[in-house]
């Protein structure tokens, strides 16, 4: 939780002033019963009109000063709470951006979004109410007790008893409800998940006529959420009635004990009224406090969830300064590299060793799930090796600051994903300083120039979230251009031509060869035609290297490679 409270630090002044002004307001309120008691005992009993007028003027003054303090307090509380929410969101966003692929996989998208939206909002409300009320309520409660003690010390013991009973009751309710709130939040996550799924998978769901079943499933999740909410409600709503009963037991005791004292002449009628008023002030504040505790409980649960994300440390630690690189060393070297994902049975990649020289092309070929993507993900250090080492320009990738390493690598991921904005903005992701000429050059190499030219606004054509307004092939070519814009030392094409037709793919390969100069290329593909001219080819099968060499040597020596070639060339030869 410390991680979360840090965000209040810049608002230290507001965090002190808001409760302080609230206390000021409360202090003025605490004088009211005393003033009323004097009106009864001195003003009315002595028929002293001037005194009554003076006292009523005092009541009015107390009200106005109280109001001014309260408005000030609300302002400070709003500033601190909203500032807190803003800083939390900022920190969460920045934390999520710093997490490695392994942690991102673990957290899941839906969870991250809930943390950043509804959890932060709830926590922000919690901070606001806490600043406004959490100090004020106990202050009024104990203040009322102290004021009662100045009237009659013995009777204030009743106050002490009532307050103790109330604290126990409220604590019990909290104790029971906190885990229940957590559970109902989990149910909400499920509803969120269902909603997202049905938006992203609308086509498949409709194609399979799953609408009714989806609705039934959603109703289950939604019903479970409602049931969980109602269950928490039933318990947390005990707070108000229970406090009401306890306070009134106090009132009954107070009036009766007061009657005994008045009969003995220790107490006046007006003082009994004042004591009662203090008791009812306690009631009012405790009702507020109880409601506050419900909100704060929820907020604390949210805060804890936020903190859990903030406490995640990226499993990757990287040094701040760039390592010595050796210009003569191979641009990329794998040395006995193995990778096992957490929780998976067999290793995804075992004992891979190869080197790739500057300007050379590495082809990685293998079936689905053979570990190709895992292998290339190690180069920009998206995942960590379990054993062995990956070296770029002679230095271990773990010795590079992440941004230095990733500047050297241009990645075209399997899933061609563009972002809302314009084509230009998307391309500039590769290199924010690139000129239009550079963008066009990259587009030409990536065979994407016609995509841009076919759009009325050219580079400024808007791109919708995810690149939905472009076809799969257009997206792929744009993502290739995006990677080229950064002029990387190593370009990784992770099955990036899968949505391209053969003609475009062939043109792309030719252009890459001609335009790239000293750039090394790592091509992951299932098409032999995409990799057959590679200087070095690695054939993977189930995470194992089953062959390494050139197209010709592999045809001779590697059964798996031969099978792959056969599966693709059969069509060509008998055409």
């Amino acid at each position, binding site marked *: 939780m410390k991680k979360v409270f840090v965000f209040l630090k810049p608002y230290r002044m507001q965090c002190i002033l808001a409760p302080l002004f609230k206390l000021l307001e409360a202090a003025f309120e605490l004088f009211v019963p005393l003033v009323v008691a004097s009106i009864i005992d001195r003003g009315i009993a002595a028929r002293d009109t001037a005194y009554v007028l003076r006292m009523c003027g005092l009541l009015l003054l107390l009200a106005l000063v109280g109001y001014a303090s309260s408005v000030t307090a609300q302002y400070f509380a709003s500033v601190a709470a909203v500032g807190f929410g803003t800083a939390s969101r900022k920190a969460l*966003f920045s934390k999520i951006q710093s997490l490695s692929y392994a942690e991102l996989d673990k957290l899941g998208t839906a969870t991250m979004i809930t943390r950043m939206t509804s959890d932060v909002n709830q926590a922000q409300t919690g901070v606001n109410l806490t600043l406004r009320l959490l100090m004020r309520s106990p202050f009024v409660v104990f203040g009322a007790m102290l004021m009662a003690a100045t009237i009659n010390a013995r009777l204030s013991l009743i106050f002490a008893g009532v307050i103790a009973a109330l604290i126990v009751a409220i604590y019990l309710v909290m104790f029971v409800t906190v885990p229940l709130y957590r559970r109902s939040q989990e149910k909400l996550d499920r509803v969120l998940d269902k909603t997202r799924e049905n938006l992203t998978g609308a*086509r498949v769901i409709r194609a*399979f006529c799953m609408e009714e079943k989806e609705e039934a499933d959603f109703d289950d999740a939604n019903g479970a959420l409602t049931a969980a909410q109602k269950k928490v409600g039933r318990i947390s709503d005990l707070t108000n009635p229970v406090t009401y009963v306890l306070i009134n037991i106090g009132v009954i005791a107070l009036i009766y004990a007061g009657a005994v004292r008045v009969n003995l002449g220790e107490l006046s009628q007006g003082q009994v009224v004042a004591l009662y008023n203090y008791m009812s002030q306690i009631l009012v504040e405790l009702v507020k406090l109880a409601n506050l505790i419900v909100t704060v409980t929820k907020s604390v649960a949210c805060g804890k969830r936020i903190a859990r994300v903030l406490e995640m440390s990226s499993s990757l630690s990287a040094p701040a300064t760039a390592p010595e690189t050796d210009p003569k060393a191979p641009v990329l070297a794998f040395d006995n590299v193995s990778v096992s994902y957490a929780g998976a049975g067999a290793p995804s990649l075992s004992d891979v060793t190869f080197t790739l020289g500057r300007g050379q092309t590495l082809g990685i070929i293998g079936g689905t799930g053979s570990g190709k993507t895992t292998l290339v993900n190690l180069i920009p250090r998206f995942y960590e090796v379990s054993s062995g080492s990956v070296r770029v320009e002679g230095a271990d990738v773990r010795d590079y600051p992440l941004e230095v390493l990733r500047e050297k690598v241009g990645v075209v991921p399997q899933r061609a994903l563009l972002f809302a904005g314009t084509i230009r903005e998307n391309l500039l992701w590769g290199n924010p300083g690139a000129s239009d000429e550079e963008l066009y050059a990259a587009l030409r190499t990536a065979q994407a120039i016609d995509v841009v030219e076919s759009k009325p606004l050219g580079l400024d054509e808007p791109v919708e979230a995810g690149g939905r307004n472009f076809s799969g092939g257009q997206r792929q070519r744009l993502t290739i251009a995006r990677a080229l814009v950064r002029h990387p030392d190593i370009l990784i094409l992770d099955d990036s031509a899968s949505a391209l037709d*053969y003609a475009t793919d062939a043109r792309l390969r030719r252009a890459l060869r001609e335009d790239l100069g000293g750039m090394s290329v790592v091509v992951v593909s299932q098409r032999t035609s995409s990799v057959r001219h590679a200087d070095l080819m690695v054939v993977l099968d189930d995470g194992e290297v089953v062959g390494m060499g050139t197209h010709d040597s592999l045809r001779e020596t590697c059964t798996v490679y031969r099978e792959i070639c056969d599966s693709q060339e059969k069509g060509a030869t008998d055409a």
Partner: protein
Amino acid sequence: MKEQKSDKVSGMRALGALVPYFKRHIPMFVAVTVLAAASVALTLLVPILIGKAIDLIIGEGQVDFVGVARLLLYVGIAVGATALMQWLLSVCNNKIAFEMVRDLRRDAFRKIERLPLSYLDTHPSGEIVSRVIADADTVSDGLLMGFTQLFTGVLTILGTLAFLIWLNMWIALCVVVLTPLSLFVARFIARRTYSMFRAQSATRGEQTAFIDEMIGGQKVVQAFTHEDENQAKFDEINERLRRHSLRATFFSSLVNPSTRAVNNLVYAAVALLGAMIMIYPGGFGGIGPALTVGALFSCLSYANQYTKPFNEISGVVTELQNAAACAARLSELIREPAEKPDAENARELPDAQGEVELRHVAFSYVPQRPLIEDLSLLVKPGMHVAIVGPTGCGKTTLINLLMRFYDVRDGAVTVDGYDIRELTRHSLRRNIGMVLQDTWIRHATVRDNIALGRPDASEEEIIAAAKEAHAHSFIKRLPQGYDTVLTGDGGGLSAGQRQLLCIARVMLIHPAMLILDEATSSIDTRTEMKIQDAFARLMRGRTSFIVAHRLSTIREADLILVMKDGNVIEQGTHGELLARGGFYAKLYNSQFEV
């Protein structure tokens, strides 16, 4: 000012949209009203009882202990009963509010299932999610506060007024004259905060959409070390949200102190008036009984209680304003026109033969940008039709039309001679198995993912389908085999493995027609060759539409359609098209270019 007014109108209309959801809770609502009335009456009785007790405690040796004890017993009974009723009241309120939100979410979800795809294709899913989740929550919070406090509030006001009049006419009058101030203040603030909440809500939506996109694409963001730019953009939205939130939060938080200040004013006035009436009995025309200390005490308690419900009601008003802003966004979604329902006399197509015809079809996504103009085509049952062409030529559009994800603008698509618009969508789609390039895996077990189209399939059938799709061997190697829970984005599965699961889905349903939209583009050819026979078996006797760029997979097709810019420019068999030496031949030969 005009803006404010229209905001208010739409807010009212949004609340009106909630009425149907409320209807079935009317019996419960009646119970709530009765409980509220009873508990308010008993709550109001307590100050009178205590006031009377105080009048029995006059001074030294002047205490009527028997009377005091009797009155305090009544207090005890009233308090116990009130507490019980209050609890029941909250339980009932929770039931109403939570169930209303449940129903709202249910309908929003139902609408999502029925929205035209053109809507889903053009609205960020993050924004829709925010409506169904966050906005619905705010509506629920608003309603909860509203139900509990609005009615007890109103009843307390009326009850207090009655008791005050009964105690003393003049004090009652003083309270009645001064309270409108409280109402006025609350109204004044609420009017100004509604548009602030609306602005906050809109900015929040914008931020959620951004978060949704960037967190979803986080891996790409990191690959391009684009974190700093994202953070900057995020901070900009975040800062705007901070400004809107601050205004909304601060101004709405003024309601309570302001009404409380009015409350204290009334309290002082009652104290003054009460004291004066007691000092000068008869000086005010002698209306009502002369005041005792106990009665003044009761009046002061009431004066306190009288303005408190105004505090609460104004609090409710703020919450309701906020809830109305969210309800507006939610009901906008719920009232969004659904796709055209099946025609009333739509017929079922139980087992299609699979004859598909396109008659003079014209279609475009955007009216200004024509795509398909006058396309005609006849596909006999069992024919295998391959659609090829450069990327973006309209191949996928044909499939959108055939599945009726979109309706043609002109002409007609028929299956077995029926215009597909005269068939129920479900019976049409049940006859078509579809595998898309964009694989979609749901957050569920592998088993549930395969059994998507036939949830009642037996274990044997599921495994058989997985084996046919060559998915069985990798599934076995997953940590929990068929019980492995996959996350929405496919988790640890490769694109190819995801695709194999999607194929297994279709393997399980054996439809009359097949659509394979780049279905094998992310499967390696070695595996594809291995499942080729499974595909062949799947396609045997079934009308199949195959969109592919891998020409080797479509050579066997009975008819190849070559599309370019929305038109079929060549059609024929592989041999015919090669012989013609046109676009297809060029395309085909290019795959052997190096």
